[in-house]
């Protein structure tokens, strides 16, 4: 592999891995509180379309980013109302949220299809930009979300494993009854986890439309939400491992784009399959160990302690 190809793949891996990482971090927090949200795909779509539309209307990508985060948060609270307050089935509620995201994103984005926007500003630190080999690539030329991706993973890890709040969230995920008995409020903690997860999911979606593609198209997330859910399993519900997972998948996507750009003989449609097949492979290889690492009460409904 030539150096430029490798640098191109690396630069692309970081850029397209960013949104996967935020989505994975969000789902990790949610699943640590014992909830499975299969509607992540819908959250990403809502984030992408709200972020793009607000940016197209106001001309300010930061406003778009904020709106996307808020919309993701609201959508997850809707999920919370169903599965925490109404104690509805989590898988079905997640799929309902996915449909909701399909529809809402199409409605919000429709007037802005084909709009030209100025996305999130990208920059490269001055001392790095001076190097000639760096200038030849898109490496290190990133937007704020990408620069903050690894700090965000560290922050989520710290919140989950080094704070009282995180202990509470994990306690609810392991055993809501025990958490309740020790004076915690499982419902409140789950709603807080969902808010944080929705916020990160909204950001993840917005990064796609505001930095990666600079367009809005229906269903543009193309299953990234489900890939992120698989990454949570792969990373064993650990935010730091999620970084490696996101890079791996970002890399697969970037490699495929680079090959296409270089006029590879392999059909682009076959190359497009790699992320999904890779996800299945990863689940195959790591799926067996999940029962040890998963929060013990993941996916179970807590009916209160009586």
């Amino acid at each position, binding site marked *: 592999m030539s150096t430029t190809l490798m640098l191109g793949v690396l630069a692309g891996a970081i850029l397209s891995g960013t949104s996967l990482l935020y989505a994975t971090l969000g789902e990790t927090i949610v699943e640590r509180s014992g909830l499975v949200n299969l509607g992540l795909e819908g959250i990403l779509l809502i984030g992408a379309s709200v972020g793009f539309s607000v940016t197209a209307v106001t001309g300010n990508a930061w406003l778009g980013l904020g709106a996307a985060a808020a919309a993701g948060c609201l959508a997850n609270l809707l999920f919370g109302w*169903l599965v925490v307050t109404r104690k509805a089935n989590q898988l079905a509620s997640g799929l*309902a949220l996915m449909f909701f995201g399909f529809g809402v994103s199409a409605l919000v984005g429709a007037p802005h299809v084909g709009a030209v926007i100025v996305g999130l500003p990208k920059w490269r630190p001055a001392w790095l930009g001076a190097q000639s080999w760096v200038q030849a690539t898109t490496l290190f030329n990133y937007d704020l979300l990408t620069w903050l991706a690894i700090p965000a993973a560290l922050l989520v890890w710290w919140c989950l494993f080094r704070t009282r709040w995180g202990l509470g969230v994990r306690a609810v995920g392991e055993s809501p009854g025990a958490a309740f008995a020790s004076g915690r409020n499982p419902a409140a903690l789950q709603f807080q986890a969902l808010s944080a997860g929705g916020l990160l999911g909204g950001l993840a979606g917005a990064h796609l439309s505001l930095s990666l593609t600079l367009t809005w198209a229906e269903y543009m997330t193309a*299953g990234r939400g489900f890939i992120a859910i698989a990454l949570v399993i792969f990373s064993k519900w650990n935010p730091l491992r999620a970084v490696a997972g996101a890079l791996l998948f970002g890399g697969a996507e970037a490699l495929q784009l680079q090959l296409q750009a270089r006029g590879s003989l392999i059909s682009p449609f076959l190359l497009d399959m790699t992320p999904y097949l890779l996800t299945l492979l990863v689940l195959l290889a790591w799926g067996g160990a999940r029962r040890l690492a998963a929060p013990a009460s993941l996916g179970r409904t807590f009916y209160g302690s009586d």
Partner: protein
Amino acid sequence: MAESRLAARKDAPALRVVLRYAAICAVALALFAAVLLVAGKDPLKAYADTFRSTLSSAYGLSELLVRMTPLLLTAVAVALPSRLGLINVGGEGQLYMGAWLATAGVLLFPAWPRWLLLPFAALLGFLGGALWAAIPGVLRAARLVNETIATLLLNYVAPLIISYSIFGPWRAEGSSAYPQSPAFPEAAQLPTFFDTRIHAGFLLALVALLAYWLLLEKTRWGVDMRAIGGNPEAAQRLGIPVATWVVVALAIGGGFAGLAGMGEVMGVHGRLRQSLSPGFGFTGFLISWLAGGRPLGILFMAFLLAIITSAGDTLQITQGLPYAVVNILLALILFLVLARQPLRGGAK
């Protein structure tokens, strides 16, 4: 006297179920109308247009049956594995693979006589969906990958195989902007009825539903399946081959979804296209879930959701909205049903 009281008691819940769904639909329609109003559209006109294009004419009703065909089949594709507690969200991909393999058969043997080609292609359609669904089935039976996530992921792979084929080896000459396969020969077109677009696939769908009911209620297999759905470990100890059942149930379900795809290419389009399905597989999942997997419920819900998804077409044609917006209405119905569920995990 006692008999009539019993009958009355039996009737009351059925009536209540219908009323309950009617109320849920009314609330969902009202909420969706509010959404359309906010978007600056005219909901009353949209609903009136939908009614006019579906229920008010013989042609509209016939188009509903055309639309119900893939919905019924993909709903059975979900319902059958759901008896075992399996969640098949891959109807969309299975539909595509059924269409793909049926097309392969037609394009390989275009000169075959009709009496041979039609059953052969239908069989291939079934097989395409069945093999595609067997992948998550095997992964699940070996306790390697959860079938929900595997079926979801494969939904994204199947349309790429279609695209690869019609952009490549199966591309019809002269189809540059929207590539598609060559038109099928006359012998590969499913028969249609009464000068409408209702095709033989609709009969197949009814047969599939009937077969599902028979399997469930009248055979020893149905008992086995329910045993696995109730408690897989106990079923295993009773000597029921649970792993085999997992693969078989998903494969047969996928086969029905494959038949839906076969029906679309051989009954509706007459060729393989990229835009085969506006999410029939997902809607089929909703139908089965809303009906609780009950055969009559599936028939009723398929009819209802055929009307509702027609609203998507109406929105697209008369109000300039994307078809996907109708997903909001589907989601609202689901939300209301989910929120109304009894608080203690349903009937035990």
